[in-house]
């Protein structure tokens, strides 16, 4: 099983004619994702990567029945693209774009409140349900279908962890990059709730980093309402305060957002936090064996 996206996912790529948009449309199609429409205003009627292009998301919904969007629109126009998707009734909106102004994201969050949509990102690698579909930019071949859910604020760090999981024989139900920006559409908790209700997910790996308090909030939620094993990793133990570590959201400011505080909050909630990235896959396997008598398929 999986959450949010599966073989029934029909994707529209916003910004399909751009360099990133067209490259990753190819990659998604190669993975087996049903990319059935693209949107580039002014280029409706054309084809890109053999996919029909429309002027608007609304047209793509009407003509191709898309239910998920993947956004590669440049930062100045990305907020508008998210709102267009939300307004057209798209259910899962995946925004890959990095560099969206924070006030634009405040406006997006106010606009989509109460709408029946889930925003993943921005500044994220996207979402993949291995063997079914990938909506995003992660390398497909490192993933295997399985029972571990992954939620992460990072891109390549997630690939590292997924690769380790796959190597120890643990496949993944769904992997979600929630994004490295200060304001993102969905939190750890939003997806933990979905994994909780997904019978196909046996355990969750949570990959956090410095900045904000999303990990602390997740710890509180897990303590009160989450019964499956969670294994966490927090990046940035050695990050100095006051410096933005690449991601717009990865900054320790005013003494808040330190890795150590997050590790503490998670451990206090009884969550296994692995400090050694090199062995994370093995740790997840050990935890599953102990808690569930789990044996990965050969």
């Amino acid at each position: 099983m999986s959450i949010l996206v599966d073989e029934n996912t029909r994707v529209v790529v916003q910004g399909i004619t751009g360099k990133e948009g067209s490259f990753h449309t190819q990659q998604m199609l190669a993975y087996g994702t049903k990319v059935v429409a693209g949107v580039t205003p002014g280029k409706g009627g054309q084809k890109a990567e053999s996919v029909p292009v429309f002027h608007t998301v609304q047209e793509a919904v009407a003509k191709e029945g898309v239910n998920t969007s993947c956004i590669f629109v440049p930062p100045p126009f990305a907020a508008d693209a998210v709102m267009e998707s939300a307004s057209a009734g798209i259910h899962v909106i995946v925004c890959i774009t990095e560099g969206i102004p924070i006030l634009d994201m405040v406006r997006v969050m106010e606009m989509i409140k109460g709408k029946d949509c889930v925003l993943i990102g921005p500044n994220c690698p996207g979402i993949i349900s291995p063997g079914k579909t990938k909506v995003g930019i992660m390398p497909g071949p490192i993933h295997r279908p399985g029972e571990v859910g992954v939620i992460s604020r990072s891109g390549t760090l997630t690939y590292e962890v997924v690769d380790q999981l796959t190597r120890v024989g643990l496949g993944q139900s769904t992997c979600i990059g929630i994004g490295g920006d200060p304001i993102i559409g969905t939190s750890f908790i939003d997806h933990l709730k979905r994994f909780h209700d997904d019978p196909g997910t046996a355990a969750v790996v949570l990959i956090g980093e410095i900045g904000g308090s999303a990990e602390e909030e997740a710890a509180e939620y897990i303590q009160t309402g989450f019964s499956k094993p969670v294994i966490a990793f927090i990046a940035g133990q050695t990050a100095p305060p006051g410096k933005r570590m690449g991601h717009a959201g990865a900054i320790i400011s005013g003494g808040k957002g330190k890795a150590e505080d997050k590790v503490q909050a998670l451990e206090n909630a009884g969550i296994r936090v692995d400090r050694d990235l090199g062995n994370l896959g093995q740790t997840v396997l050990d935890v599953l064996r102990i808690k569930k008598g789990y044996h990965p398929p050969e």
Partner: protein
Amino acid sequence: MKLHEYQAKEVFRKSGIPVPNGVVVASTDEVDGVIRQINGPPWVVKAQVHAGGRGKGGGVRVAHSPDNVKTATMDILSHPLVTKQTGPEGKKVLRVLIEEGAEIEGEYYLAMVMDRSKARPVMIFSPAGGMDIEEVAEKTPGLVQREHVNMQVGWMPYQGRTLAYRLNPQPGPDTLKELMAVMDKLYHIFIDYDCSLVEINPLVITKQGRVLAVDAKMDLDDNALFRHKDMRGLADPMEKDPLEREADKYGINYIRLEGNIGAMVNGAGLAMATMDVIKMAGAEPANFLDVGGGASEEMITKGFEIITRDERVKAILINIFGGILRCDVLARGVLAAAKKIEIRVPLIVRLEGTNVEEGRRILEESDLEFLVAKDMAEAAELVAKQG
């Protein structure tokens, strides 16, 4: 992008937030020419650097004569300023702000910041001005009031009243009106300039009952600078480490740290985690360097050059998980850099992901000397051996 106090005060002045009159000078010689434009004594001489805690570090002086102003200016300009935010080596001060003094009745804290988890800007107001607000919030949370703003509505007058009328004792009605006007203007600055922070600490009520922003701090959202082209010129590159400045030119995310193991990684999360791995192995990272998800061969070359120019670096760890960035591109970039510069320290390479075979082959067939780590665990072991 951080602004200096004098730059932020210029924005305040334009927006109608009252600030003391002042002039910026870069040398003692300029003092005579400008001192008559500013009311005094007393005068206040303030170091212009991007660091908090200037007062305690001796970067803010009160002067009672023009000669005093000169001495203070010379003193501040000739010594690096050490505060709790600068590190022990301190920061060189290139400019000072000379301002008229104010007769202070009360000091307050006022700021607009982004509340990440609520996804809304929040106004923070406290009667405990001039102090470290984080500390105040921790020790006496009752002294810190917050008002979140729905941007679809904007800052409403009732929110100003909610904050201002809580004051005890109450300032006079005209002062309260001024205070609420400053709050409204602060919100508009925050929105109009795409800020991530606008802070006045302290906001002063003078003996005459006027409201005055004695300090000013503004931090602009880097991602929004494309729509504030006029503000870009206010960036002060001298605030950065020279290697960081160089990296900026090429769009490389590089932050210099205290250790001696250089690192080049793709992706911010993996770069942070790699720093942690270095530390776990008993060494210290010399830098954070994220070449980005889709780095070109040229960016890899530049990144590698920047690391090797840091003289403290005793070993270099390249950790790449190829996704969009292909391992063969990485390998070619490293080789191009090695042709230009002599690499005198051990090089540890860990490659995984897209086109990894090709990347490894390119490196192996070159005459570059390097150690191969097959995974993160082995990379850590090899780093530890370089100690």
